[in-house]
């Protein structure tokens, strides 16, 4: 990164993948080729901007072991994401980072992993999934469960990855939607009500949750009741932030900054912080 952490570098849009097909959720994945290599760890994030419109915060969504490009998965929501969605392959985005702490992948070694994600919440966990499934890393981790939730069948992202992920040793992928629709033969309902039906060893599992705040709270409680200690339940938080450097004063929870001390926190850490997230 530049000595000046505010200065972005250009990143050419190589490819744009339309992730969702529902009317309410427009999510696209942008494969970018930054001017210089950005080395990141699972769970870290970048500030990404369209000059003249502004800058927003996005978690990396791609395999951190792949060095020739990065991917950001972006839902059209506000001013900046609207402008990003107007761009085409060949256009330029401006990025700076990586920022944030990332997941403690070394601490996770020797454990089973249970991912519970809702909607776009899969995006910031995808770098971790790719990292642990990498052939050089797979043996360091045990059984992997994934409960992937979405509002409707059209709202799942990275569906093109599921078969590849599921073909790795001891990986089990479960999908659920909010309400039953004709032709859907997988789970229906919220993950916190479903994970008790999945076989896992609470004593040796790391629980990983990403989704809206209410989903984090409910699933952390569910994991806890199924025997996972709070120092083995992890989440990654979303906060409005401007600088990513612990200075602009926006993303704090108590005295801790989501951009510096997070975005990855254990539930033990969150339980000790004021509940302002």
């Amino acid at each position, binding site marked *: 990164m530049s000595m000046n952490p*505010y*200065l972005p570098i250009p990143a050419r849009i190589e490819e744009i993948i339309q992730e969702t097909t529902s009317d309410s959720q427009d999510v696209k994945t942008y494969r970018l080729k930054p001017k210089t290599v950005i080395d990141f760890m699972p769970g870290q994030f970048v500030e990404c901007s369209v000059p003249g419109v502004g800058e927003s915060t996005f978690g990396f969504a791609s395999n951190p072991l792949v060095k020739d490009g990065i991917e950001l998965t972006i839902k059209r929501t506000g001013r*900046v994401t609207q402008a990003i969605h107007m761009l085409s392959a060949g256009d330029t985005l401006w990025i700076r980072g990586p920022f944030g702490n990332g997941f403690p992948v070394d601490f996770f070694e020797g454990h089973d992993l249970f991912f519970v994600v809702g909607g776009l919440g899969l995006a910031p966990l995808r770098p971790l999934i790719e990292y642990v499934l990498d052939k050089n890393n797979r043996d360091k981790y045990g059984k992997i469960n994934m409960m992937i939730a979405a509002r409707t069948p059209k709202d799942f992202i990275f569906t093109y990855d599921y078969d590849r992920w599921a073909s790795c040793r001891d990986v089990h992928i479960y999908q659920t939607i909010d309400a039953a629709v004709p032709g859907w033969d997988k789970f229906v309902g919220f993950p916190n009500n479903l994970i008790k039906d999945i076989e896992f060893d609470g004593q040796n599992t790391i629980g990983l949750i990403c989704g809206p705040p209410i989903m984090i709270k409910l699933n952390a409680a569910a994991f806890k009741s199924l025997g996972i200690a709070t120092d083995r339940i992890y989440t990654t938080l979303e906060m409005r932030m401007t*600088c990513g*450097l612990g200075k602009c004063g926006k993303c704090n929870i108590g005295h801790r900054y989501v951009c510096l001390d997070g975005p990855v926190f254990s539930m033990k850490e969150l339980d000790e912080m*004021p*509940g302002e997230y």
Partner: protein
Amino acid sequence: MKRIKTTKEAFNKDLAALLDKFDVFAPSTKQGKLDYLNITDPEDITWTDDLPYKSPKETVFPRVEEIMRFTKDDVVPTANVKPVLLLGAKPCDIESFDVFDGVFTSEKGLYIDPFYKERRDKMLIIGSGCAAKKPGCFCDERGYDMTFSDKCDAFVALDGDDMYIDLITDRAEGLFSGSDCPPREVNKAPETTLKIDAHENDIFTTMPWEDWAMSCIGCGTCTYVCPTCHCFDIRDADDKGEVTRCRLWDSCMYSNFTLHAGGTNPRTTQAARYRQRVMHKYVYLRDNIGITACTGCGRCIRLCPGGINIHDTVKDIMGRTGKK
């Protein structure tokens, strides 16, 4: 610490010679209001015991600051400006630069802010004391001596037509002429009696924040006049394709300060926003950089349209958490 004596007239002459090298900010009166203003003539300085109604933070942390300019395939950081000479800064306001330094250039943060650091490194501060406390002031309770601060390069005192200058740092040597005189007698700083020792969780939910913030209209005046408030936003300006990126003051008192694009807002009430302001100053920065970020200047108290008083709030917290 050396002290020299000169006349106001000679001082003004020496100061005039510095105007080429520095942007000089000093207490000056415009539209009937005393403020730290960029002056071009030493005669425009208002020598008074009064406290300027705004803090001097914008001398190194401008309200709107261009930080970079986009070209077709590169981005160029904005070259910095003339050094600032802040003259007549009151001891409370001098204290506030400790907070800014802690946030923007401290080794405790992972990052140094290059824009702030460049301005700050070039800056020269010449302080001046207060003879009397003003309504709402409580710097003494915060442990600061209102008559003097040595956290600056030089310190001046006007006595009729005589000017006394304490030379504190090497950078102040040779700027002003004068004859040596006996050094100033420095008062012992008062004891800090207004501070919060409690853990953040012991006051976050248990205090009557709703009562304290009931009259808050969310105008943000407190944060704009405050010498230590430093929260900011970054916005782009697009002038016919010429794009610049600017840093602007922001305020935790505004409802959209923490509003996510997706509609979630972790701080939905004005009480939660007032809590953030008080706790950021008295608890969070205490824990993060070891400094309580309130200088006791009283500006937020004097200018709040809702009559909210941070001194009373903190005093109340101290009482409720077992401290007098």
